[in-house]
């Protein structure tokens, strides 16, 4: 295991960096998109709520790999060619945004209608209430489930291996097929993933306990 790591240090590191980069970019954008759709699901207009709901249901019920492949092989035929990394990150963002939307929506609901009514009665507009009263409380509630979504996101970023995204999984595959030491290589890859996910997972469990 050690010699695989030392001989291929640079390759592993590139993969590790790409996995982190892709996860952070996808997290950033899916948080924004997810929050927008979560809010849209709570507005008074029924039409807007339905549209937001359709978006969420579509991306929640189609495999990430299918979404990613669409951006990797279908989109280039009509628009521009996307690199594997870009296609994978876009797919990951859209897929995760649906889950984040559901999580944040649950948070908004948990804050309770009383807060909204009270704020509105005090003269705040709908958007002011959302921005200053509801969302700050909702986000505090949903930090642990959001953290779990981030862990899922990191694990799901391995889908980049399908589209030559040079992530950890892809690099591991390259090393495994060159060295024929499949088990050792995958063990190293596993350790790299655990470095990212395990501390996060324990921290989220700690937060859940603290909040409960």
């Amino acid at each position, binding site marked *: 295991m050690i010699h695989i790591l030392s001989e291929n240090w640079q390759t592993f590191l590139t993969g590790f960096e790409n996995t982190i980069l892709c996860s952070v970019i996808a997290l950033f954008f899916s948080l924004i998109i997810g929050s927008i759709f979560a809010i849209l699901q709570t507005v008074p207009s029924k039409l807007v709520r339905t549209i937001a709901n359709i978006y969420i*249901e*579509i991306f*929640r*019920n*189609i*495999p*990430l*790999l*299918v979404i990613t*492949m*669409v951006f990797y*092989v*279908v989109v280039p*035929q009509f628009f521009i060619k996307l690199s594997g990394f870009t296609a994978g990150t876009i797919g990951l963002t859209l897929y995760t945004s649906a889950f984040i939307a559901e999580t944040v929506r649950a948070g908004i609901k948990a804050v309770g209608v009383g807060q909204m009514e009270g704020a509105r009665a005090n003269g705040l507009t709908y958007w002011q209430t959302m921005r200053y009263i509801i969302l700050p409380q909702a986000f505090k509630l949903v930090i642990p489930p959001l953290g779990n979504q981030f*862990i899922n996101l990191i*694990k*799901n*970023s*391995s*889908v980049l*291996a*399908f589209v030559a995204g040079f992530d950890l*999984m892809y690099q*591991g*595959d390259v090393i*495994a097929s060159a060295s024929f*030491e*499949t*088990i050792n290589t*995958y063990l190293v*890859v*596993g350790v790299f*993933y*655990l470095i990212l*996910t*395990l501390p996060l*997972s*324990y921290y989220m469990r700690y937060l859940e306990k603290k909040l409960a």
Partner: protein
Amino acid sequence: MSTFEQAYSWINLRFLLEGLWVTLEVSVISIVLSFIIGLVLGVIRYVKIKYLSAAVGFLIDIIRNLPLLLIIFFTYFGLPELGLRMTPMLAAVTALVVFESAMLAEIVRSGIQAVPVGQMEGARSSGLTYVQAMWHIIMPQALQKMIPPLVSQFISLVKDTSLATIIVLPELLYHAQIIYSQNTTYMVPMYLMIAVMYFVVCYCLSLVARRLEKRYG
């Protein structure tokens, strides 16, 4: 539009449906097996048997925090190094069961934990043994609380079977790829069709979850 008509010829559709069948087969087998194993592991983790629970807990945490794709690779490409060679079908089911039972165990554990302690104390003081109390009092209540996360995990599992294309499991995505690799103009119709198929299966599951939740929640 004629591309779509040609793409959706009966032969192609039948080929896709055969893929869907494999997807469903792998999903159902994995769901049943991983639910049983997850239930046992979750209970072991909850009841705190000395050493065993800690060891099981550690193992679950490791597996839960690895990408499923890595586990699939390991099972199909790694294990032959140890002389354990599997068919794509068996490898896919094995990898899915290993991964999903760890995920489910965590759901089971937190479901049991969500049942108030008073329930166990009350049952015990009414003369039930620990196992009886667990089986008749705690588990039914815990299962109720677990329904939503359990079903969304099952939905994840159905979607995750698509990852097994990489080990040439002849499931839905793989069959679609075979069709459009012969004629690239079929690419859009094929992705559209399999997206619809996956969507219908997963959405139906989530509707079932909603009904169960209403009935028992």
